[in-house]
Structure formats: C-alpha cells, structure tokens
C-alpha cells in the first residue's frame, strides 16, 4: 500500500472523530474529554457485534448510537448535575473504560477473521473483488460530513450553533439551553464512536488502549483545519463561495496531522514523533498569528 494512501486512510478516520470534536470544541465551546472513552466505545461495540456475526454496516449505526448515549450521559451530568464541563467529560471517560472492557469482553479482541465493512460478501458481490480500504473510509467520511453539514443548516442545527455563540439568546427563544447542549454532546460523541468503529474494523482488532490521546489528535486536527479555513475564506477567489465548508477543512486538518506523524515515523527518530506533531501545531498557530496581524493592517489601510 502506498504511504500517502495510508496517511489518507488514517486521516479520514480521525477526520470523522475531528468532526465530532468540532461540534463540542468549536460550536458548543465545550472541552469534551468523553472522546477518549467514546472512541474505543465505538470500537468495543463493533468488536462485540462483529464477533456475533452482526452486519458490519449495521455495526456502524449501532456504534454511532452508543456514542450518542455516552454523549447524552456527559450532557446530563453537566446540565442536570451542574458538574463543570471538563469534569463531566473526565467522569464519563473514566467510566467508559470499564464499560468498554465489559462490552468487548476483553482488552484485546482481534477481528481478522470477521466480516468488516472492508471485506464482506456484499461488498465483493457488487464490486467483484477487493476494493481498497480508502474508498470505503472515504464514503463513510463524506456521508458523515454531508449529514453534519445538512444538520447545521436545519432549525435544530441553528439552535446548536446559537447555544455555543450566545446562550442567552437560546433562552430568549424559549428553548432550554441545557437540552441543546446535551443534544450537541450526543451528536459529537456519536461521530467519535463512529470513527472508533471504522478504526477497529480497519485495524482488524479492538484494543482498550486505542482511545488514549484521541482527544488530542482530534483537537489538533480541528485547530489546524479551522485555521486553514480562516485563511481560505480570506482568499479573494473563494471569499463568496460557500460550498467548501469548514467541515471539509476539519478533514484536511486531520489528514495533515496524520501526515506529520507519518513523516516522523518514516524519516525521523521514532522518539521525535510527539515533538514533530507539537511543532507542527505550534507552527500553524504562529502562522495564523502572522496572518491575522497582516489582515488587521490591511483592514486599517482600507479604512
């Protein structure tokens, strides 16, 4: 398999996760640590279902719903229990570790012999052979992205964006801001669990430790993606075009981040990987600072 394709695959899987984090971090302004638990939750649910012979495509949906449930719990703890955002995430993340062990039945469940979304009779039936993993991942990623884009344009989606932007307005609109937050956390963790499901099917194994650090990867992807989006929207030819959305850039952020890890693995000392990822993120943020400063100057000049 080509090196670039492997980066693309990983990037797209983590891009789905980043979509979820985009909802909590950018839209809701909620630092949600549940992610480190709901990502392996998706994997655990998938592992349990696949070993029981459940249709792998159905397992995607069920994993998503499991994530929705986890997000709802985080939301309820935060909204009804009045626990601070960071803490409610930590509580759920911690609890999910046990939940995941119980669901999967073991800390490591190999799926090499199971039917997955990448290899099953249905897929072979319509394509007549092995189709590369990335097409399947791309399909899941694009569908998730389009559905999220669609959702954010609905009334419910408007409300979700409003609650992160200005809670007071949501109350003024006679809506319970707490419920809207819970809904946002639910959708977000649903996407994260979906990513976990795709991840373990692609890896051919569920491992309890697969969630560790997924929040950081997702957050970095979102920050890189949204930063690039800001640059992009300022570019003249694209300023008025709205068909390329920020969600696309979230995927781009994830792919770039994974490319960084890939390059580190391939060309640098293995120990340096985290440093390279850190420097990459820092570089993007500093470039944005430079970019914003120049932008301000330009605005002044025009004024």
């Amino acid at each position, binding site marked *: *398999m*080509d*090196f670039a*394709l*492997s980066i693309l*695959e*990983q990037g797209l899987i983590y891009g789905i996760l980043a979509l979820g984090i985009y909802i909590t971090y950018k839209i809701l302004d909620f630092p949600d640590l549940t992610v480190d638990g709901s990502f392996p939750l998706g994997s655990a649910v998938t592992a349990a279902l696949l070993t029981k012979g459940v249709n792998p495509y159905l397992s995607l949906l069920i994993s998503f719903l499991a994530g929705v449930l986890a997000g709802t719990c985080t939301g309820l703890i935060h909204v009804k229990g009045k626990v601070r955002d960071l803490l409610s995430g930590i509580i759920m993340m911690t609890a999910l*570790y046990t939940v995941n*062990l119980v669901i999967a039945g*073991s*800390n*490591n469940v*190999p*799926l*090499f*012999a199971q039917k997955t979304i990448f290899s099953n009779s249905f897929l072979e039936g319509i394509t007549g052979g*092995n189709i590369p993993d990335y097409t399947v991942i791309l399909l899941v990623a694009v569908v998730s992205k389009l559905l999220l884009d669609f959702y954010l344009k609905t009334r419910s989606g408007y409300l979700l964006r409003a609650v992160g932007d200005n809670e007071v307005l949501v109350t003024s609109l006679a809506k319970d801001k707490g419920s809207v937050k819970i809904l946002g956390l639910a959708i977000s963790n649903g996407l994260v669990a979906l990513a976990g499901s795709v*991840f373990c099917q692609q*890896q*051919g*194994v569920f*491992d*309890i*430790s*697969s969630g*560790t*650090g*997924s929040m950081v*990867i997702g957050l970095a992807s979102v920050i890189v993606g949204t930063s690039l989006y800001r*640059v992009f929207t*300022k*570019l*003249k030819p694209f300023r008025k075009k709205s068909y390329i959305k920020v969600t696309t850039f979230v995927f781009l952020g994830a792919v770039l981040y*994974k490319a960084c*890890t*890939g*390059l580190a*693995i*391939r*060309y640098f000392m*293995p*120990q340096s*990987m*985290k440093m390279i990822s850190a420097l990459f993120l820092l570089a993007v943020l500093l*470039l944005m600072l*430079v*970019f914003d400063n*120049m*932008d301000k100057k*330009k605005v002044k000049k025009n004024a």
Partner: protein
Amino acid sequence: MKKRVLAVILGAMMTTAGLTGCGGDTGSSESASEGQEMYTIGISQFAEHGSLDNCREGFIQGLEEEGLVEGENLVIKVNNADSDTATAAQIADTFVADKVDLICAIATPSAQAAYNSARNSEIPVVYTAVTNPEEAQLADDEGMPVGAVTGTSDQLPVQAQLEMIRELLPEAKTIGILYTTSEANSAYSISQYEKYAEEYGFTLETAGVTNTSEVSLAAASLLDKVDCLTNLTDNTVVSALPTVLDQANEKNIPVFGSEIEQVKLGCLAAEGLDYVNLGVETGKMAAQILKGEAQAEDMEYELLTDSSLYINQAVAENLGITIPDEMRENAEETFTEISQE
C-alpha cells in the same frame, strides 16, 4: 498579499516534505553491494521497556548468527509506538509502503497491527513477545499461522514458577498478582495462574490497575491479603516495580519476578524467560524466511521450553529466607546485590 502568504506557507511545506523525502531513505535494497543480496527489515516495537528491548537486541543477534549482519547485508529500521495502538498501525503501514522484506513486531498490539497491514502484501511478519498467539488470532487453534505471520511466544512458565515458590515458601497459602486491565498478555497470564495455582496448593488474589499511578494503592490493598506477590511481564506494573518492592519489603512479604531484570531490581527469585534468547530464536526464524529456507505460512510459532532460574541472594537475606543449596546450584544467575538503577 494574503494569497502570497499562503503560497509561501504551502511552498515551505512542500519544500520540507520534498527535502525529507530525498534525504530520509537511508538504504534501500538497490544499494546492495558486491552482488550480495541486501535485506531490509522493519522492527515495530510497541513500547520502550526492558524486556522488549532485550527481545529486539536478541532478534538482531539471532539474525547475525545466521549471517545477516546490519550494515553488511541488512538494513534495519526500528520504530517504537510508545504504547499507542494507532501509532503501531501507522508504523506497520509505513513499513509496508516502504516494501521492507520482513516486519518484526514486538508485543501483541504491534504484531496485530503488522499482520493487519501486511495481510494484502507479500511481506512476512515475525513476531515476538506475544503471550498467546491463538487468542490474538495470529495463529489458529492448532498453533499454525493464519497467514504469512509467525514468531515466538513469551508465555510465562507458570508451573515452574509456582513450583519454585512452593519450594521457597512451604507455608504460603495466598499468592497476589498485580496486573493492568488493558494489557492482553496479562489477562492471559492471569488465566494461566488461575488454572494451575490450586495444583500447588495456592489461592490467588489479583488486583487490576489501569495505569502506573494506581499501582501503589493496588499493591497496598493486595499486600494485606497475601503471603507473597508474583509478577507478570505486565508493562505498567513492571514500570512501577520499585514502588511495589518498597511496600512489600516494609511488610516483609517476598515478591517474585518473571524475568531477569526484575530479579536484578530486587525480586526474590524468578523462573523466567530470557528475553534475549527469545529474541535470538525469533531472529533465527526471520533469517530462515529471508533466505527462502522456509515460508512463514508453514512455520508453527515457537515457545521457549526451558525457563531459567534467577535468584537474588541479597533479597533472600533481607527477608530471612534460606535458599536450598540444590536450588542455588540450578540457578542460571544469582545476584548478590540489589540494583539501584
């Protein structure tokens, strides 16, 4: 203006990528000299850890014994996943993309990742330090490979260990084990202990942790209930071994190890595997495959049949335990001091 900035950014990014692209690949098969065939091996190690490092060194040594020498006819790329499964997968993908001649995977998650990535390629995978290849689905129920994947198992010599403990502590009733709930190898080893403990007249008490910071608390709670502790090759617990030893020493409770490094650090004794040996065996298997003498698909995974006894005399004296002469004679290695490293 803005366009130019972006152009510069993109340009810079591409240049960096390009530069590293040219300079990175240190040695490929084509650079083979004097007509001798040149092999490239990718070693994917799951974590930085004493026994796994020993495995790696043994592996390279084993290759050498078979005439495959790094720098002469062998290029070795080593990568460490830092205990992260996603990184393990990416490492494996990279090796496959680089078309190495063989992947050596150390520890279960790396082995699974390597097998998964190499499944659709021609690249054979040789693993080591996988406790239970059947359960990891790297081998079928008969121990035969599920694909071009074989290697060695570091299954603990549980029975030998129990026998040794019985001999040293004839009165002991309860054995305690600390383990990490997330480590596949540990879960399997626990089940082995559960299976054999009774045979040697022991009952088993276990305490599970999820990370190093919990080891101290778990050890304290376990030490109230047991006559001795025995260790697995559990990465997390082994990293926090000094904490466990401190607490056990305070209560005068002996701690048994599972390999040489742990005895060096202050465990009383161990019927353990020599991970360097395990690596050597693995290296020999890899050499056979590379030279075309055998196919990975046909090679049953191997177990080290003999365990070796390691004793720490200094610890025995501290605990007031006399080690039988016969046992001392059988020991592979006896330490007279506790390593402070």
